[in-house]
């Protein structure tokens, strides 16, 4: 009997504590503020970065096949001579560490090598169009 009463008192105390705490939290919180959620680590831009690397590495093959889908709409409208931009057999090696993104624009440095020519360094600027990174332009760096 004594044990049962003690359990009842403890249970009542627990209910009171929970109810009081809940009421206090409810009264204190700013109704305009959304309920706090567990803080998540900032989403890494890794996927975009990986997409950019793949995009840049894939340019020689795309250009060789006349595929302009990897270019921004502005470049597409210009109908560039892709074989002149990157002759067959060219390679483009991006520098993943140079990735920089701000909104719908991003850049990554890359070294392009055409057959029989010395390697040239570029800043490759990409623009996010329709959810896909596309080449907006390449900008030659010093000494290249």
């Amino acid at each position: 009997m004594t044990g049962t009463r003690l359990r009842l008192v403890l249970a009542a105390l627990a209910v009171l504590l929970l109810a009081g705490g809940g009421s206090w939290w409810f009264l204190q919180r700013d109704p305009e503020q959304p309920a706090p959620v567990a803080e998540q680590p900032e989403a890494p831009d890794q996927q975009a970065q990986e997409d950019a690397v793949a995009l840049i590495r894939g340019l020689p093959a795309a250009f060789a096949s006349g595929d302009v889908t990897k270019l921004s709409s502005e470049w597409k409208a210009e109908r560039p001579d892709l074989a002149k931009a990157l002759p067959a057999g060219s390679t483009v090696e991006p520098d993943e560490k140079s990735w920089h993104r701000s909104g719908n624009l991003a850049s990554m440095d890359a070294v392009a090598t055409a057959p029989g020519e010395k390697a040239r360094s570029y800043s490759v600027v990409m623009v996010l169009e329709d959810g896909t990174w596309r080449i907006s332009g390449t900008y030659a760096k010093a000494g290249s």
Partner: protein
Amino acid sequence: MADLRDLREGRLVRRQLLALAAALLVTVPGGLAAAPATAAAPHCGQVRRAAFADGVKAAKPHADGKYTPIILVHGFISDPGMWAKKVEHTVRSLDKPKVDRSILGNLQALPGAAVYTVDYSATARRWFADPGGGGEAFLKVSDCVAGDPAFAGHPAVVVGHSMGGLIARWADAPGAAERRKATGLVITIGTPYEGSWLSALGNGAGGRARDLLFLAESACGDNRFTSAEPCRWLRDAREFLATTKAFVPGSPELRKLSKWPSGVRVETLTSSAVVSGVAGLFRLGGGSVDLGDIVVGRASATAGDHPQRIAECRYTADSLRVGANTVLERFGRRLDSNTDIPVWLGLLGSCLHIHEANLLEHSAEILGAVAEELRRYDPAPLPASAELRRQGACRAACRITGHVSFVHPSWGQVILITTLAAGDEVREANIVVTDASRTVRWHHFGGDWFELSIAKPAPDRAGNYFLDYNPGRYNGVIVLRPRTGGFDDFTTMPPEDDYVAPFYYAEHRDVDGDGTLEIEKFENDCDPSCAEGTITTSIHRWTGRGYQP
């Protein structure tokens, strides 16, 4: 990782302190107001002339004892201190020019210049036409100098950078005819007449110019360079333009502004960073990219049919690297390694919007234009009578009987000259106006007159010049008033080689003693003969448009 070397040596620190001191002289109210030299300088109510900079000790008036107000108007997110910064940029070389003066000091050293700086720095992050904005601050200065006798006859020169140019145009808008008359010359630098391309830039448009700006901003985002002045300013400008939509081309605010009214002389200056051989698609060149002054495109800054000067910074991939170092040196750093070089920082060098008032080329252009404007008030030299004859203003040998100098609205400083024949064999009188180069600008052949001279005071209080002539019997009065392209004579001028005119048989008088001359006209009824006739007189007074009894 680039190797950064700190160049912050004593020399650099001293230079920065000197620049800071010069800036303080301008921005602190009354900084040098108590200096004896300032006491002789004209003040305008509560508006104070800018404190002297660069060792200038005193202002020197024009020959007439008056001054020409030079009003400097800064742009958005700026302050009057910009005018006191040393001229430290040039497009010709990526090295720092060896000029130890500012545009402010250079202008103050010009004879006749009284330089005022408009300060609306507290509201420089707002559209100028908003209540309490830069427009009101400008009107306070310009209206005050316009009404000050120290500047009578000397319309102001206005130099406006960026939004400061829009303010000057807004102030001279149609409907402000009086204010427009008080404005002689306007020079605008990097003024976004048609808006700012940076303001219109979205992620979906802008092409190669947008890309290059993105690369420059990316370089600024590097922790090592975020504190560089051009990077800080560009961030501020981006934030300002993102919140103030007025600078978007075609915005309601811009559309509401009038064009420059006719009659105002305007010169437009701007900088332009032109990048060539850089943009493209790998080996495929993309031509050159014109970034304007990074904030305002050259077409916007030079809109309208006015003389224009564009200072171009031409960049290639290699010069961008040198340019990046120049930018970094200005805040005491240098890149020695060629790895990981933020070359795109080079775009924020000499041709950046905020550097335009400290650019050697613009500074020289402004100084030259203002000096030329002030020289209009230098006394024109009196040509010899032989020179007048050589130019056909005298048909035979002549002698000068009177002359007076003044500023003509079209020809600048001129001399009004009266001549008579030098000998007895030929009689002729001429009224001649020559300019500062002794060139005859205007001429009237009076004819067979015995007397011709300029009455005093010249001009009278109304601004009119009186000439007395006598062909042999009666005296006559001619009145001339300078106007654009020539003179008004209010029909007082006899035809060439004649003497008959409405005020033949008349004399000039100052009836009221107020300095404004009247014409006393005589009439003889010649009854029964002219010798015995009754002479009546009438006083003709200046009405503002002519002379009426």
